[in-house]
């Protein structure tokens, strides 16, 4: 079991982070080159000010028309994304690993807060899944890729929660949790999760078009 732990926190972690960071960089750079080559008539209108205007307006809950028209999804998606990022980054046990391996140390979330935030992520995943199953307009457009993305994100939190509360075998659950987390990292550049890499740019482009050319709001 120790050897397995060593492996998943050692070589496998390096591979997962490597795929995540290098893969994301490669996707961004190749997309940038493609945009310069094939989307010149769009690229020409990119504007930092209007990009930020659009991004900021969409980062405020219930500000954009889309958020106002979908209140359940708005609450769910904002809570989901905040917890999704904050828990892995600021969890005490994770920071301890950074300290152990690299001597890094920074602020942490109290464990009980992180526990609740984990439940928020899982509840949000249930809401997303429920919409895909029961809401006709969402079910109609749902594909395997969407279920895959949801599963990849839900698993690290589910296994992390179970490991923390020592349900089933702690060692096995911990290793499963680490592997699930690594799968999520490695999947980011190559699945629907790539919106983490690209969404700011698609939003920025739309903001630039609406701000600089169409002189209208895009939120």
């Amino acid at each position, binding site marked *: 079991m120790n050897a397995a732990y060593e492996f998943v926190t050692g070589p496998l972690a390096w591979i997962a982070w490597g795929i995540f960071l290098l893969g994301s960089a490669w996707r961004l750079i190749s997309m940038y080159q493609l945009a310069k080559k094939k989307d010149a008539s769009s690229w020409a209108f990119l504007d930092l000010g209007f990009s930020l205007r659009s991004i900021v307006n969409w980062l405020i809950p219930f500000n954009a028309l889309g958020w106002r028209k979908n209140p359940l999804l708005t609450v769910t998606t904002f809570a989901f994304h905040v917890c999704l990022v904050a828990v892995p980054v600021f969890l005490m046990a994770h920071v301890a690993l950074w300290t152990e391996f690299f001597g890094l140390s920074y602020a942490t979330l109290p464990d009980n807060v992180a526990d609740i935030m984990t439940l928020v992520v899982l509840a949000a995943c249930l809401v997303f899944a429920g919409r895909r199953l029961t809401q006709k307009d969402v079910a109609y457009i749902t594909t395997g890729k969407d279920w895959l993305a949801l599963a990849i994100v839900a698993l690290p939190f589910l296994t992390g929660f179970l490991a923390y509360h020592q349900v089933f075998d702690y060692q096995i659950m911990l290793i499963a949790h680490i592997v699930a987390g690594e799968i999520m990292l490695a999947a980011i550049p190559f699945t*629907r999760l790539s919106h983490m890499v690209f969404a700011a740019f698609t939003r920025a482009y739309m903001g630039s078009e609406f701000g600089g050319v169409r002189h209208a709001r895009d939120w």
Partner: protein
Amino acid sequence: MGITERLIEDAGLRRGVSLLTPEKIEKTIVAVLQGETGARLKTYAETCMRCGMCAEACHFALSHPGDPSYTPAGKVHQTMSVLLDKKGRVDPDFIYGMAQLAYTECNLCRRCVHLCPIGIDTAYIMSTVRRICHKLGCTPQYMQDTAHSHASTFNQMWVKDDEWTDSLMWQEDEAREEFPGLRIPLDKEGADIYYSVIAPEPKFRTQLIYQAAAIMHMAGVDWTMPAQTGWDNSDMCMFSGDFEVMGRLKRQHFESAQKLKVKRIVMGECGHAFRSVYDVGNRWLGWRWHPVPVIHAVEFYWELIQEGKIKLAKKFPGPVTIQDPCNIVRGRGLQQKLREVTRFLVEGDIIEMHPNMEHNFCCAAGGGVINCGPPFKNVRVEGNAVKAEQLKATGVKTIITPCHNCHGGLHDIIHHHKLGMDLKFLSDIIYECMEKPEA
């Protein structure tokens, strides 16, 4: 559920599809996807999380509650997503449905942009689908007829060169009875304003040219209209996917204005033409901005009012409501100027529709949908029941909308739903209410 369950017979689509082979389809689709699309389409296809938020955006979806195949993402799901997944290996019957959906069930109005957190431009995706259909020769018969007219005559309505100048001189002649000294100056070099219209104006809404001439005359504007091709600013090729001809049309329009060394182009009260000249054609031609400044009639009238050049003898009796044309509101942000002009002209309230301004619902005629002709009329009339409800809720008699497509679309909605409302262009009201010479 989906387009295959609501196919409509169209001669153009049927004949186009009958000539297709799987090889030709694949080759054409791959050529367009690889040759003409890039990072935009790729990121849109990949990062659409299929959240369904855009369902609330589309008048087609809202008018068909419970049928998700009309939602923006649902439409992409049935068309571009399939082309990408199958790498173009689809059969001719699929192309029929794809073409019908792209040409008649999406107005390219871009309202869904306001509901997509990621900022996906569904109109761009549907335009690319149309581009593929055009390349495959599968376009609705009526729309293709207008595209042919553009290609052969540089105008949308098969107006012959002599008919064009005849129509202008006829309107000038008529108007001189009411406005002695009025001219419609043809090919006047160095004029301040080059006034361009869409071909339906000389063809069957000639009074709009009369009214424009009256307004120009009374406001003392130094203006001209071109005697040669280039006068028609409309563009069905932009909507059919025939971008090559679109480029020729826009070049002709700009070059005709450049030859006359005019200071600015003022476009008549049309939305799609404005989109074509202001936002689309220039890009196809490789111009970031326009070689001659371009403004829409709403902005022009607004300027004239600011300068005190439009003098009213009376005000138009309100209340009125305003139909915001997508292409000058989401396309150019003219919603406030439209209201300021309306307030200047109308006595009484503007009863707003909700949603309005840049969140307005499209008339369902735009994007070339009305140009697909009678076979698809009910698609757009029944596909915009929400607009009928919006209009009814205002309780007013008069709708002001500075767009030809909005007029066409709302006219049919008003009749179908027996709303008994009148439609007005701004120029209708300015002409009716302005000071005129003593007869």
